[in-house]
């Protein structure tokens, strides 16, 4: 049988056809096998059941969380309520943003309301050793309280340069933050895994995952959602883009219902306002951003839905476009109109910024933010205090 033999040529052609079909099937296999998990993608937001305000007496308190901090910079704090009702807070601290001595710090507040002394969870060298790769610096932690009692921690490691060289890692604690697993890296970008940063609170999903608002800051600068969904071997991570471009980023997402949500974007285009976008399909797609009346001086914003359905948003609102005050805006119509109701904190000539708010199981708003460069402050207030601000004359249109 030679290659000129027609039967041999037919056999070769048949074998090549079979090989081609086999290859076709093998390549489609992973896609087909993902169909079951894909059935749970974009499952909708898990909303906490409506709660009446636990206390009717106005309550507002601010405390300094890192009283003995030796670092010059403490920033980007995150907060979570744990399964035992205590609070956990994490932030990054060091000589400055992107410095080699930046560490991820962690503190817990016990049932009596006393914050523990901060302790270091991760430093640059330890993270590099654990992940067996070069790390320049760390940053932007974000706590994930899972329904099964585990506590997750996302944080950024920078491989090269500054924030544009960052990627997101995850570590888990099964003992409410006492011990942590070795960090693992999420691959969220095809070009050297650059760059993704978490910033604002995650939204819980139906079925036990999260929609984590993140942003990219490399060639473009835009908001994204990191979808963490339960899988056989833990959590699957994937990203969808909320909107490309160069101007809006650091999204804060507020679920309004299982399918509807409102996003608040930090805006550095010079418009000086927070921009808003809406989703009606569980966060899969988002509307074009619309400029709101809320002030924004190119600084972080954070929004939250109160137990009674009203929305609050913490923003910097200084006349000179500085970050010297942190004010609270209220909306009773799902973000269509806003009123500034109170100044939460003010440090003339200095900075109070990067608010991070969650709703406590007691119905109170729990908040952490950066102050004076090296402080992390914790604020707690209730809806009665918000109503008191309104009654006292707060309620200026921004």
């Amino acid at each position, binding site marked *: 049988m030679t290659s000129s033999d027609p039967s041999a040529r037919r056999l*070769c052609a048949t074998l*090549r*056809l079979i*090989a*081609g*079909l*086999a*290859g*076709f*099937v*093998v*390549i*489609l*296999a*992973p*896609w087909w*096998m*993902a*169909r079951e*998990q*894909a*059935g749970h*993608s974009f499952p909708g937001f898990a909303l906490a059941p409506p709660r009446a305000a636990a206390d009717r007496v106005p309550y507002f308190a601010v405390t300094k969380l890192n009283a003995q901090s030796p670092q010059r910079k403490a920033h980007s704090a995150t907060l979570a309520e744990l399964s035992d009702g205590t609070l956990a807070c994490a932030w990054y601290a060091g000589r400055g943003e992107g410095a080699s001595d930046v560490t991820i710090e962690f503190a817990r507040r016990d049932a009596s309301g006393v914050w523990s002394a901060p302790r270091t969870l991760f430093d640059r060298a330890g993270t*590099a050793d654990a*992940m*067996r*790769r*070069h*790390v320049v610096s760390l940053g932007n932690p974000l706590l994930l309280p899972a329904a099964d009692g585990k506590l997750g921690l996302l944080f950024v490691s920078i*491989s*090269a340069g500054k924030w544009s060289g960052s990627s997101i890692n995850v570590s888990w604690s099964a003992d409410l933050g006492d011990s942590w697993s070795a960090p*693992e*890296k999420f*691959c969220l*970008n*095809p*070009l*050297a*895994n650059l760059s993704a940063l978490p910033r604002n609170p995650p939204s819980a999903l139906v079925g036990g995952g999260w929609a984590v608002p993140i942003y*990219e800051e*490399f*060639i*473009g*600068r835009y908001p994204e959602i990191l*979808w963490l*969904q339960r*899988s056989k071997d833990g959590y*699957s*991570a*994937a*990203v*969808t*883009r*909320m*909107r*490309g*471009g*160069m101007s809006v980023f650091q999204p804060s997402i507020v679920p309004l219902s299982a399918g509807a949500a409102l996003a608040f974007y930090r805006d550095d285009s010079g418009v000086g306002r927070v921009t808003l976008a809406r989703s009606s399909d569980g966060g899969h*797609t*988002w509307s074009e951003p619309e400029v709101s009346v809320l002030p924004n001086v190119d600084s972080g914003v954070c929004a939250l839905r109160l137990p009674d359905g009203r929305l609050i948003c913490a923003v910097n609102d200084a006349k000179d476009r500085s970050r010297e005050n942190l004010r609270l805006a209220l909306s009773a119509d799902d973000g269509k109109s806003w009123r500034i109701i109170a100044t939460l904190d003010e440090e003339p000539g200095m900075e109070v910024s990067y608010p991070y708010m969650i709703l406590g199981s007691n119905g109170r708003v729990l908040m952490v933010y950066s102050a004076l460069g090296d402080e992390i402050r914790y604020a707690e207030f209730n809806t009665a205090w918000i109503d008191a601000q309104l009654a006292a004359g707060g309620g200026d249109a921004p």
Partner: protein
Amino acid sequence: MTATAFWWNAAGLWLLFVWGWQRIPLLRGPAGLPSAMVLAAVLSLVPFFGHTPRYWLSGLTPNISVPLVAIVAAAIVARSRLGKIFGSREWSAAWIFGALAAFVLYPSALGLGPRNFDSYALGWPWLAWGSSLVLFGAVALAAFWLLWRGNRFGWVLVLAACAYLGRLQESRNFWDYLIDPLYALISILAVLRLLFLRLRGS
């Protein structure tokens, strides 16, 4: 980093070093291959500024694609004169696939394409099952066409799918098994060279 991802990256880097050593004429041919392999192993283990090259590489590029490993392995075999894994058709297919994939992937993934479209998201089938069929289907059709035409590069695409199923890399995105920045760069340069030669020839 999983153990498999660690060893995949280490093996990929070692192959690149073997290929690099074979640039030296003395290390080409079947007799030079063992020396090139040993020297590559030494280079892989020698610390630069306190760490191995793999440590530095993993910080910047966590995923080495299957086609890159395949073309480097094919180049090593060819330079060692041990046989011929890739003929000219396979090389052309490798460069064209790499350049096309780079063109589809990188601009939109870096935010340079349509504002709300991210082609990288097509590589996560559990997230958007329907739209990810575009990527998996296109690669499956390419593999079918190549294998049907007797082009061995089709097997490389099949191997990439197998590696994805076996989670050989740290990434769980199919794109990272198909392309990486180095393969993209080499492919684009090779395609430009092919085009230049063709234009000059005509």
